[in-house]
């Protein structure tokens, strides 16, 4: 594809039952573009973890996706509480998820590590009290 494609989706911070909608739409778009299933899977998993984090930890936000001819760039922006200690948050098993979301199966503290594992590049930009922006890139 000659030119980059852009998608933008709001992530609803209130509705837990529909969490994952933005990721599901992106998956569908990438399929329509004819990307290989392994690339689609990596993007889907990384983006879902980020989207769920915005719902659980940051009251929602916005997801921006850019598809170029060689990579998919995912930018997740929220105006939540921010992450005070990013190194700690990145550790497997670290979680501040409340009990009610743990009972749904979240809160293993594996989301951010998964995002790192399934992408070729990941950066967390966070200011306590202002919000978090996570940028991920998947090469294909």
């Amino acid at each position, binding site marked *: 594809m000659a030119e980059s494609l852009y998608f933008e989706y709001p992530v609803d911070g209130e509705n*837990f*039952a529909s*969490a*994952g909608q933005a*990721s*599901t739409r992106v*998956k569908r778009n990438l399929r329509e573009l004819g990307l290989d*299933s*392994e690339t*689609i*899977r990596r993007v*889907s*998993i990384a983006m*879902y*973890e980020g989207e769920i984090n915005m719902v659980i930890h940051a009251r929602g936000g916005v997801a921006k996706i850019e598809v170029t001819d060689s990579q998919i760039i995912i930018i997740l922006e929220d105006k939540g509480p921010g992450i005070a200690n990013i190194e700690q948050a990145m550790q497997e098993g670290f979680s501040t998820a409340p009990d009610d979301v743990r009972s*749904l*199966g*979240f*809160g*293993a*503290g*594996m*989301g951010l*590590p*998964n995002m790192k*594992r399934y992408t070729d590049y990941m950066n967390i930009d966070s200011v306590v009290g202002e919000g978090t922006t996570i940028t991920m890139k998947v090469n294909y």
Partner: protein
Amino acid sequence: MTVKDILATGNFTAISLPDEGREINGVYIGDLLSWVMGRAQADNAWITIMSNINIVAVASLADVACIILAEGVTVDETIKTTAEAKDVNIISTSMPAYEAAMELAKMTV
């Protein structure tokens, strides 16, 4: 082995079956969703006792072949219709996760 083959054993019940011919290449057992996202492989059968709506998105995005609800766990109608719309197979069994996995292991040989 396909999802249809598993049903043919008679020990599993269909809940949502939009893609019954889907091939299964292995099994992942787990209830913590980020573990499933991180460790299950594409085309695995995912055995769990989690039954809230979020399992449908996880199964779809992690691209597993089907969800197998163990221990006789049931889901409500919303989950069934969402799974059908999102092309996610869900079957259930009264067996515990270990026994369900054994049943699938027998079929792969």
